[in-house]
């Protein structure tokens, strides 16, 4: 997959539905960065994120499983992700996580993950 087009890779646990992922992906799309989603039977979001990051030609990966979303880069060790947040807790949180993953690619400052808290 490393020879695919440059994109953020999102590795999600196979039980995660498209509807659940929608906000996360919209956040990435609004920033104008390509994204690729694939499903796996792994349950550890850290492993999913790390695998996604090393697969991504942009070096940025997301892992989604067990109520967590993890953003990491191909340079970080598996157990030390860059950002880990709760997933699908409503509000705009997932949009912001998606947007920030794209902003890491674009090298622009990230948005506040939890505005107003």
């Amino acid at each position, binding site marked *: 997959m490393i020879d695919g087009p440059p994109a953020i890779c999102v590795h999600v646990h196979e039980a995660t539905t498209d509807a659940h992922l929608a906000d996360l992906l*919209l956040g990435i*799309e*609004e*920033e*104008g960065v390509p994204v690729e989603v694939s499903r796996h039977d792994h349950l550890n979001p850290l492993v999913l994120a790390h695998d996604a990051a090393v697969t991504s030609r942009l070096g940025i990966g997301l892992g989604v499983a067990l109520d967590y979303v993890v953003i990491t*880069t191909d*340079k*970080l060790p598996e157990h*030390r992700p*860059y*950002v880990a947040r709760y997933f699908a807790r409503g509000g705009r949180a997932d949009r912001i996580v998606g947007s*920030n993953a794209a*902003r*890491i690619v674009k*090298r*622009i*400052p*990230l948005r506040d*993950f939890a505005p107003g808290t």
Partner: protein
Amino acid sequence: MGMVAGIDIGNATTEVALAERRGEELVFLASSTIPTTGIKGTEANIKGVVHALRVALDRAGRSMDHVEVIRINEAAPVIGDVAMETITETIITESTMIGHNPATPGGLGIGVGTTISIDDLASASTAEPLIVVADHSHPHDDVARRLNHASGHLTITGAIMQADDGNLVHNRLHTKIPIVDEVSLIDKVPLGMLAAIEVAEVGRIVETLSNPFGLATLFGLDSGDTKQVVPLARSLVGNRSAVVIKTPAGDVKERRIPAGTLTFRGENRHVDVDVDRGSEEIMAAAQQVRHVEDIVGEPGTNVGGMMEKVRVTMGQLTNHSPRDIRITDLLAVDTQVPQQVAGGIANEFSMEAAVGIAVMVKTDRLQMQRIATDMAAELGIPVEVGGVEADMAIRGALTTPGTAVPLAILDIGAGSTDASVMHADGSGTSIHLAGAGNMVTLMIQSELGLDSWDAAEDIKRYPLARVETVFNIRHEDGTVQFFEEPLPPHAYARVVVLKPEGMVPLDIDLPLETIRQVRVRAKERVFVTNAVRALRKVSPTANVRDIDFVVLVGGSALDFEIPQLVTKALAEYRVVAGRANIRGTEGPRNAVATGLALSWAQEKGAR
């Protein structure tokens, strides 16, 4: 034993020089620097003094009973204050324009049409081109669906949105149109009016809406109307996306706020100057009056209010009625301040002209004698108030290797710039000028539009860097530094201030170079201007060239770039200027404390 402690109580720090007389010689044993407790010149200082003294004694391995005498400084009786007033403002009436830089606008190009609410789209039937206005109650897929549906029977040329969904909508449209999003006060966008919308390519800025003739072409304006839209076009320069709406009474005005006049009152003449004319003319007027006795602003104007505010603050600090406060020096600096545009609907900002003013007020002698009495009672050691601060500073400064009289010292503090000169015959002059560290902080704060004074202080004091990747930063000078641990996400891609205790990300969306320039320019305009102004005043011939050596002392001399800026500026006058190195070991600190100890030894030796 013959041990003396010279103690300098400053605005920010209390410094001790501990020395012992051995025969004819005075041997320095230890120094210490402790933050001053309370406001300089009040009893609250004593706590800090005792602490500082104990630290120095510990370092020297001595105890309090070895101290024969303590000398404290006769503080300079001046305090300073700063103020800033904008002298222009931009007002939008009737929501005639939106000009801002949303992070991700949608689409590309120019669209002209009549504004219509997205809710009315289904029932509309017109041949006119339309610009759709959508508030954030409509999610992106709903907006896209309605626009796609309507594009069958209507001509839609653009969209204005409240939510940050420009790209999402754009990606879902069959017919692409320019979209301006993140318009926070979308309710204020007038409906049924002719509007033009422009979104520039990535990395470009709007070209048609910022051009008066471009607007004339789009709206069919005659030559008279075109003259009217110049301020509108001008205020859109530099934006990536913009909307202009043509309403009957809509307009963008740049108003000059009448700033009023300043009057410099001298012994036998006074000079008026219009603040509107800028800092150069104000400073020229100040030079025409020798021995300024008071400076007043015209009542009922901005500058009048500003000077009044300063008088009230100073009155409170010195326990005087504001009427009795005499402002004896003033430094004016032109600056630019980002101000929210009145009537704007997308948090537009405009750079407005402003004048920053630092003033200085002479006060009564501070209560140093009383502090000395209280201290003597508490410690059981004689405490003397020794000599004028500036003279002591010169004595201390002369311990810098490579210096000789005639020598001038420049002490740039927070509130005032003090200069004194010692001539070859030992006589001296000293002066105090308005404008110092606080003025620089104020300029940085206002020019960068920072909320907090502390953030501006940080920018003034420490170098900047930009976080480039998860593992590295790039310093101001272009060098790269790597870290073993990943840098925190909230610092990612931001400009950070490199404080000794760690990096602090700045919450401002400006390139590092811009922030650096604001900082350097503020320092140059205050410190360099005042260094030259001060030296001219203490020079016997009113010429900076007639001073051979200039030594920088005090807190600002510790700054990472001020000494270089001053050294560079004074080199043009062939003056040797640089940061002091008191006793060859203390750097620019401890000058007054050292001078106090030396003066005691000299008096003892003479006796």
